[in-house]
C-alpha cells in the first residue's frame, strides 16, 4: 500500500467527504462492472455498486490493511452480488435480459465506454457478442460466475481471487475450467447458428 493510499484511508476514517469522492472516482467503474457482469442488469448493478461503497464507508474502521484495499473492496462487491443473486433467486426474479437498450446502444453507437466500432456491421456483431456473453455468464452458477468475472473479465490473478473469495486455488481453477467450458460451448453454438 503506497503513502497516498494510506493517507486516503486516514481521511476516510475521519469521514472526510472529499476522500470518499476520491475513492469512488478511483474505483467506480471497476466495481460497477463487477456488479453488472455478476447481476446482468444495469439498475440492479447500480444499486448494488452504491451499497458496496456505502458498506465500505460504514465499515472502513474494520479494514486492517492486511490485504490491498482493492482486494477488500472487491470482496465486499462480490459478497453483495452473491447476496443479491440469492435474493433474486428466492423471488424467482430471473429476468436478466436487460442487456438493455443502453447497452445495445452503447455497443452500437459507441457512446459509452469502449472503442468506437469500425463499421455498423462490426458494431452490431460486437453488441450481439456482448449480449451473448452476458447471457452465457448469467447461465453459470453463482460460484463459477464469480471466478470467471474476476479472472477473465477483470483480469485479476488467481492469488487475488483467492484473497477475495477465500477459496483454495484448486477450487478456483476447477470452477474456472468449467465456466470456460460452458462459455466456449455457448459461443460455438452461436457461431454454428450463424454459419
Amino acid at each position, binding site marked *: 500500500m503506497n503513502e497516498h493510499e494510506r493517507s486516503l484511508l486516514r481521511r476516510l476514517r475521519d469521514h472526510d467527504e472529499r476522500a470518499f469522492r476520491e475513492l469512488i472516482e478511483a474505483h467506480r467503474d471497476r466495481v460497477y462492472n463487477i456488479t453488472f457482469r455478476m447481476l446482468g442488469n444495469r439498475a440492479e448493478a447500480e444499486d448494488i455498486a452504491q451499497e458496496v461503497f456505502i458498506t465500505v464507508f460504514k465499515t472502513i474502521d474494520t479494514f486492517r490493511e492486511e490485504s490491498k484495499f482493492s482486494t477488500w473492496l472487491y470482496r465486499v462487491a462480490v459478497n453483495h452480488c452473491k447476496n443479491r443473486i440469492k435474493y433474486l433467486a428466492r423471488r424467482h426474479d430471473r429476468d436478466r435480459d436487460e442487456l438493455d437498450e443502453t447497452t445495445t446502444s452503447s455497443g452500437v453507437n459507441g457512446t459509452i465506454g469502449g472503442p468506437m466500432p469500425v463499421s455498423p456491421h462490426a458494431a452490431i456483431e460486437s453488441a450481439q457478442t456482448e449480449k451473448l456473453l452476458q447471457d452465457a455468464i448469467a447461465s453459470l452458477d453463482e460460484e463459477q460466475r464469480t471466478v470467471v468475472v474476476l479472472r477473465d473479465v477483470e483480469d485479476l490473478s488467481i492469488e487475488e481471487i483467492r484473497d477475495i473469495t477465500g477459496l483454495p486455488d484448486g477450487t478456483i481453477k476447477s470452477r*474456472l475450467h468449467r465456466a470456460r467450458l460452458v462459455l466456449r460451448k455457448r459461443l460455438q453454438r452461436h457461431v454454428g447458428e450463424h454459419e
Partner: protein
Amino acid sequence: MTEDAEDEMVAKISDLVDGLLTGAERDEVTAKVQTDEAWKRVHEDILETRKHLSDLRRKAPAPEAFTKNVTETIHQRSRGGFFARRTLGDRVPFGVLLIVALVALAVVGYLMWSSQTGSLKVDQKKPADRPSISVPTP
C-alpha cells in the same frame, strides 16, 4: 472425445493460458496444442472467449451521476451526520475518556486538598488541643 477427456483437456489448456503450468507439464501441453487438432481448436476457442470476456471490462462504465448518487444516499441515510470530522467521543473509546476524566478529577481534588487555602482542607487539630472557651456564669 468423451466428456471427461474434454473436461481434462479444457482444464489443462486453461492452466496453460493462465500461466499456471511449469516445466515438463507445460512443454507437454504446449506440444499437444501445436500438434493435435482438437487441442489446438480448444486452445484457440479459449483464447477467443477470454478476449471477448476481457472486452466486456471496457463496456460497462458506471453511470455519470454515480458518485453524486452515492454521496447523496449517504447524506440522506445519515441525515447529514456522516460526513464531517468526527467528535472526540467518536474517535476515542468511552472507557479511555472515562479514565482520563477520573484521573483529572483526582488531580484537581488533590490540589484543592493540599492547598493552604483549599476549600477541601480539613482542620485536623484534635478537640483537646483547642483553647477552651469559658462561659461566665450569672
